[in-house]
């Protein structure tokens, strides 16, 4: 019987996915446009930037430092066979700027801030705070969702720039003092092969897209959660899983478009 249930269940899931996607898109538009609503407050936005950005800073820097050091090590052992260790700076910088910086920042952000955001909004829903706001004629999109969404869009590129920089410093610290690559060559090769618009800005553009997608998914999962204790837990799990997969999938599409 379990197999026979599988087929209609699949059909139901597909049919539910499409209107859900539409509802999520409308949710996004309503929240983004809510910036011009009178209930949108800069103070709320700053509070979210603080919560998402400043408090994730240490995590990002530690993660970036180790990522850079690993890149330095692995790159060195791969390149030393060809006597091409002079390209190590380029390798570390390009991998961080183009891929690892934006993607790891977004994944860490989904785990660190996205989960908290989903839990917050879904408990607000479970305790009927969102309904209470509407009763008081306060637009919950402008008061709750919009500041968080915009904070995500602002914060992730900034975190990504810091991630890139700290990662490159980590790679430098392993390559030059530890492994004995020439420091001048490290920077010179990096500078001659990294372009500002082609590598740095496109990486940050990726981060901006990821910031939007991660906060969007997190906020939507919170908003659409079952208003029960179990629903809050499920929504938080789903938020992190969906956001992480979306970041990886979107990264492929963006790379195909941006770096051709």
């Amino acid at each position: 019987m379990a197999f026979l249930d599988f087929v209609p269940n699949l059909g139901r899931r597909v049919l539910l996915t499409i209107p859900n996607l539409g509802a999520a898109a409308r949710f996004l538009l309503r929240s983004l446009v809510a910036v011009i609503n009178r209930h949108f407050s800069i103070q709320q936005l700053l509070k979210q930037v603080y919560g998402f950005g400043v408090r994730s800073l240490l995590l990002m820097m530690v993660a970036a430092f180790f990522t850079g050091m690993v890149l330095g090590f692995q790159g060195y052992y791969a390149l030393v066979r060809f006597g091409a260790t002079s390209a190590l700076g380029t390798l570390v910088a390009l991998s961080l700027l183009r891929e690892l910086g934006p993607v790891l920042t977004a994944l860490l952000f989904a785990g660190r801030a996205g989960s908290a955001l989903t839990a917050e909004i879904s408990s607000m829903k479970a305790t009927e705070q969102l309904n209470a706001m509407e009763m008081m004629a306060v637009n919950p999109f402008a008061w709750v969702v919009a500041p968080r969404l915009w904070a995500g869009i602002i914060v992730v590129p900034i975190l990504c720039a810091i991630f890139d920089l700290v990662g490159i410093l980590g790679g430098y610290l392993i390559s030059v003092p530890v492994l004995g690559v020439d420091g001048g060559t490290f920077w010179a090769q990096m500078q001659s092969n990294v372009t500002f618009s082609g590598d740095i800005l496109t990486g940050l553009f990726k981060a901006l897209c990821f910031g939007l997608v991660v906060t969007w998914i997190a906020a939507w999962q919170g908003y659409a959660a079952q208003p029960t204790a179990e629903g809050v837990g499920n929504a938080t799990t789903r938020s992190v899983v969906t956001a992480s997969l979306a970041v990886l999938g979107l990264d492929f599409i963006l790379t195909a478009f941006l770096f051709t």
Partner: protein
Amino acid sequence: MEKRAIDWWVGIFVLLGIAALMVLALRVGNLSGFAYNDGYVLHANFTNVGSLKVRSPVRLGGVTIGEVTHIGMDPKTFMAKVTMRIEPKVKLPTDTGASIYTEGLLGEQYVAVQPGGMPQELKPGGTITMTQSAVNIDQLIGQMVFDKASGSK
């Protein structure tokens, strides 16, 4: 947390992001072109510049003294015209030569200048007349194979 403190932290956070971007742009990316902005301009005509690019280094005895700022074509002589910016403290004599060399076997190409012995100095905007073009490895291999083939007869 107090509102003022949050404002401060967010401000510091944003400044940190901007600072990181600046460092990335100047130190990692190659926007740091202002290093030779106060230098003077020299031209050199080559028959073949190979894969020389704008921002390729100009070297004297292995030391970088400037960079290529523009590569164009002289429509009259059909020569490639390379414009370089040289550090102001480096004064080159008029019989200076310029060649395009490759760093290592497959590395980047750069302009190497060999100063002559004339007492007069090249003025800003002057042209280096003695030039040696980029070595074309394909051509060299072709020549070698051809020489071998004709020599064995």
